[in-house]
C-alpha cells in the first residue's frame, strides 16, 4: 500500500470537511448537545431543583434497581442527589454519549463515500493509479480520525462539565469512571467503525448523500433503545456489558471488512457508481 496516496486522500477529505459549513455545523453542534448541554442541564437540574419530589416513585425504582445490582465503594452515595447524579453519569449519559461517534461518523462517512460520487470525483480516483484497498483504507481512516477526535474532545468536555458540577456534592472528581473509560477506549471506536463500514455498504447501493444519511441514521435506533431502557430502569449497561458489546461489534466489523474487501473491485465499483 502506498502511504503517500493514503495520506493525500485523508488530507483532502479533512480539507473538505473543514471547508463545508453544513458539515462543520453538524460536527460541532451535535457533540456539544449530547456531551455538554444535556449532561450539564441534567446535573444542574438534580443539584438545584427538587427532583426527588417531582419524579416520585419512578426515581426510587431506578435507584433501588441500581443499588441492588451495583456495588460502588469509591464514592459515597448517601443522598438521593448523589445517587441520581452517579446513575445519570455512569448509565444515562454514557448511552447518550454514543450518539456522538454515531452521528459524526455517519456525516463524515456519507460525505467521504457518497459525496465523492455525487461530486463526480470518484471517477477521477478510479481512473488514477490507486488500488481499491488503498482507496478504502484511506476513506475509512478519513472518516474515523475526525470522528474519533471529536468523540475524544466531547469526552473531555463531558468530564469537565461533570466534575465541575458534581465536585461540591462528592468532594472529589468522579469523572472518568470505569464505564466512561471503556466507553471511550473500546465501545466508541468500535461503534464508529461499524457506522463507517455500514455507510460503505450503503454508499454502494444508494445514489445521493441524503439517501445515505437517511439509511445510515437507522444505526441510532439501538442506541436510543439503550437510553430508553436505562431511563426506564429496564436494564443497566455497565462496564462488562459495554466490553461485551465492543467485542460483538469488533466481530461484526471484521465480518463487514471481509465482505467489503471481497465484494468491491474497481470494475464493480465503477459500473455501480459511475453513470
Amino acid at each position: 500500500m502506498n502511504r503517500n496516496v493514503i495520506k493525500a486522500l485523508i488530507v483532502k477529505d479533512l480539507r473538505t470537511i473543514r471547508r463545508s459549513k453544513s458539515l462543520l455545523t453538524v460536527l460541532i453542534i451535535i457533540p456539544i448537545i449530547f456531551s455538554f448541554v444535556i449532561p450539564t442541564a441534567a446535573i444542574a437540574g438534580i443539584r438545584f431543583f427538587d427532583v426527588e419530589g417531582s419524579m416520585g416513585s419512578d426515581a426510587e425504582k431506578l435507584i433501588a434497581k441500581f443499588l441492588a445490582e451495583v456495588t460502588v465503594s469509591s464514592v459515597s452515595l448517601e443522598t438521593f442527589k448523589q445517587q441520581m447524579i452517579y446513575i445519570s453519569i455512569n448509565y444515562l449519559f454514557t448511552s447518550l454519549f454514543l450518539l456522538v461517534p454515531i452521528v459524526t461518523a455517519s456525516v463524515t462517512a456519507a460525505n467521504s463515500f457518497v459525496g465523492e460520487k455525487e461530486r463526480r470525483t470518484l471517477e477521477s480516483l478510479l481512473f488514477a493509479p490507486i488500488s481499491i484497498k488503498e482507496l478504502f483504507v484511506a476513506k475509512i481512516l478519513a472518516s474515523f480520525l475526525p470522528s474519533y477526535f471529536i468523540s475524544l474532545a466531547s469526552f473531555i468536555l463531558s468530564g469537565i462539565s461533570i466534575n465541575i458540577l458534581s465536585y461540591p456534592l462528592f468532594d472529589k472528581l468522579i469523572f472518568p469512571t470505569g464505564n466512561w473509560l471503556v466507553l471511550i477506549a473500546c465501545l466508541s471506536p468500535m461503534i464508529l467503525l461499524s457506522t463507517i463500514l455500514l455507510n460503505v455498504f450503503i454508499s454502494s447501493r444508494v445514489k445521493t448523500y441524503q439517501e445515505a444519511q437517511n439509511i445510515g441514521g437507522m444505526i441510532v435506533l439501538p442506541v436510543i433503545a439503550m437510553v430508553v431502557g436505562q431511563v426506564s430502569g429496564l436494564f443497566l449497561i455497565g462496564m462488562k456489558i459495554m466490553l461485551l458489546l465492543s467485542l460483538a461489534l469488533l466481530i461484526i466489523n471484521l465480518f463487514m471488512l471481509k465482505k467489503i474487501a471481497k465484494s468491491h473491485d474497481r470494475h464493480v465499483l465503477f459500473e455501480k457508481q459511475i453513470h
Partner: protein
Amino acid sequence: MKLTSTSKRIEITERSGIKMISLQHVSKSFGKRKILQDINLEVEKGEIIGFLGPNGAGKTTLIRLMNGVIKPDSGKIFIDGLDLMENSEAIRKRVGIVTESAGLYHEMSGYENLEFFADIYGVCDKKRIEELLFLFGLQEHQKQQTGTYSTGMKKRLALAKALLHKPDLLFLDEPTNGLDPDGIKMVLSYLGEYQKQTGTTIFICSHVLHQLESICTSFAFLETGRIIEKGTIEQLTEKYTKEAKVEIKTNLEVKSGSFAGFPCEQQSENCIIFTLPSKKYISGLLQEVLKNHWVETVALLNTDLESIYFQVRSCFDES
C-alpha cells in the same frame, strides 16, 4: 508477476510490433444493451487519433475500457504491449485522462487540486504544478476555488491534471466541450505542440469534427458500437471522395449549367460551384476560367472531415 508481464509484452511486440493501443475483438454490453461490438483498433505510438461518433455511440465506454475501469465482455486490450487486465495498475500510472465531467474538487483551489493529484500520481516535483498552471493560463486563478471557475477554466485545469505525470498516453473525452473559441484554439494548439515535443499518443473522442481536423493524424468512426471506418485523412479522402466540389469566387457567369466540360451551378453573383471528377482537374479548370475572368478564391468543399464523416455514415447506412 513482473516476469509474466515482461514476457507477455515481448510476445505481443514480436507478434505485431509495439502499438500504443491494440484492441482485439472487444465487446461490451450493459444488461441487454450492446454498447460496443467486436472492436478492433490499433494505434501507433505518437499518433493523435480522433475517435468520432454521435452521442451514445460508445466513445466514453471505450475510453473506460481502455483505462481498465470496466471489463470487456470479450476481447483483449493491450496498452504499449501490456495486457490491460493483468497490468492495469502499471498502465494507469502511464496514462492521463480528461473525462467529460473534469473530475475536480470544487471546494479546493486550482493549485490544491493539482497538488492532490500530483501526490496521487507520485509527482514529486512541485514545479510541474506551477509550469502547468502557467501553460494553461491559470496562474492568476490558482488560489481560487475551482467551483468558481468557468467551464473553460475547469477544462484547462483538468487537462493540466491529466498531464501532471507526463503520461505516455492521453485520453481526452470531449476535451473542447464548454470551451469558447479562444479556449478551443488554445487547448488544441497546446495539445498539438505537446505531442510534437513529447511524442505522447493522444486519443481524442469528440463529436465536433472540424476541431479535430487540424491536429489528428488519423481518425476512427464509431457508429452504434462498431468502428465503421478508420484511416488518415488522405486515405479517407481517397476512398470516399468520388468527385471534388470546388467553390470558385469569380466574375465568370454560367447559364448553361456547365463550363469547360464540367458541370457547375451558379450559387450567387461571383460564386460558382463546380463538380469535378477529382482534385487533379482543378488546375485545368482554373486555367480556363482565368483566360477571360478574375478569380478571387478557390475552396474544396467536400474533402473536409465533416463531409467525409457523413459520407462514411451514409455508406454504412446503405450497407
